[in-house]
């Protein structure tokens, strides 16, 4: 064998993974070849020297730490066999669905915060709006009531007639309006006004409440037209 082929087997020679024939070939070659002999001697020397490095024993803490970790692992396994707790199920769910990268986690948190704030703002605005509308309705109702009663008590005939016209166009009469209209029917100086008030009262849904007042007013009337109007209204309502 050539030197290059022999040198390739040097590692086999050192480690002992070599058959007897090859070993003999190497030994014969290095006896005759000074260069190969020097190299093999050099390699063998360091290979042998490595034998002085002692095998050491680790400290007892290695064993202690291992058995502690093993015990902990066994306990975890036993808990897993008992079935996952609600907390673990939730953790597992979050583990699967929650974003992993911090930048996405931050984005999700920010998005949820914005959604929460927006929803809160609109809910609050909606509630406030509802309250505001109810308050305004009540105010309008009160103003209308004042206006109606005020018009019905005016000295001016035309204003009183206007008041009667207004009351006849509303679906529900305001408090005090009925009283003012009945007063007109009983004591207004103008017959046309009385007749208009009878018409207005006749159309109101509150008629049953004032039926008795109509009957009593009939005896006080001096005008046949008013008497007829009261009688006809009463008669029609009782049909």
């Amino acid at each position, binding site marked *: 064998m050539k030197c290059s082929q022999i040198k390739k087997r040097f590692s086999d020679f050192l480690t002992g993974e070599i058959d007897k024939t090859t070993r003999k070939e190497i030994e014969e070659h290095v006896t005759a070849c000074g260069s190969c002999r*020097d190299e093999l001697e050099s*390699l063998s020397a360091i290979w042998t020297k490595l034998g002085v490095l002692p095998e050491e024993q*680790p400290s007892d803490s290695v064993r202690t730490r291992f*058995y502690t*970790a093993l015990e902990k692992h066994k306990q975890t396994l036993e808990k897993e066999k008992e079935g996952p707790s609600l907390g673990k199920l939730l953790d597992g769910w979050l583990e699967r669905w929650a974003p992993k990268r911090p930048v996405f986690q931050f984005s999700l948190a920010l998005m949820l915060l914005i959604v929460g704030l927006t929803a809160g703002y609109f809910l609050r605005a909606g509630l406030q709006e509802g309250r505001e509308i109810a308050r305004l309705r009540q105010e309008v109702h009160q103003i209308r009531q004042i206006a109606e009663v005020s018009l019905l008590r005016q000295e001016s005939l035309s204003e009183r007639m206007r008041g009667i016209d207004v009351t006849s166009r509303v679906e529900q009469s305001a408090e005090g309006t009925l009283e003012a209209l009945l007063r007109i029917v009983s004591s207004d100086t103008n017959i046309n006004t009385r007749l208009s008030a009878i018409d207005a009262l006749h159309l109101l849904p509150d008629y049953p409440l004032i039926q008795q007042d109509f009957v009593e007013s009939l005896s006080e009337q001096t005008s046949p037209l008013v008497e007829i109007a009261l009688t006809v209204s009463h008669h029609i309502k009782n049909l």
Partner: protein
Amino acid sequence: MNKATDNNLMEQVRDGNAGKLAILFERYHVMLYNFFLRLTSNRSISEDLVQDVFIRILKYRSSYKGQDKFLIWLYRIARNTHIDYLRKRKEDISLGEQCDEVPCQEPTPPEKVEQAQEIVRLSQALAKLPLKKREVIILCRFQNLKYKEIAELLGCQIGTVKALIHRSIKELGKAYFELSGGIAS
């Protein structure tokens, strides 16, 4: 302590009988400790790495296939543990940091001074080698792995392992003689 028994124990660990790992620990923790000690030249780090290896075995037990030779699988985990440790440190273990830690745990008697110095020089020379060359010498010389097993572990051909061992011994010899103040052969 045969192959079949190791494999059988590891299969039981894989299937949920974690207690069987204690037997494997008792068999192999000293061997692993010395493997890491020669790689890192640091006792405390070597003990931590042994601990990490067995924690990883528990963690990745389901990845163990019955047909794998347990010892090769164990060394694969050990190598990965060591590589991860090096990555964390961002640098290889330097000679200056660690070489004084290796040799003697007790005061050296005068007659053993020369041997102690030899141990220091060899440890320093070993630490000077690149990681792969250091690994291959340790696996072959101290861990008694065969070419075939080293090839399987490193994922290469047997011929490549032989050539690597040859080059590594030459480089180790050169480093040793430099440290001894001599001339490399």
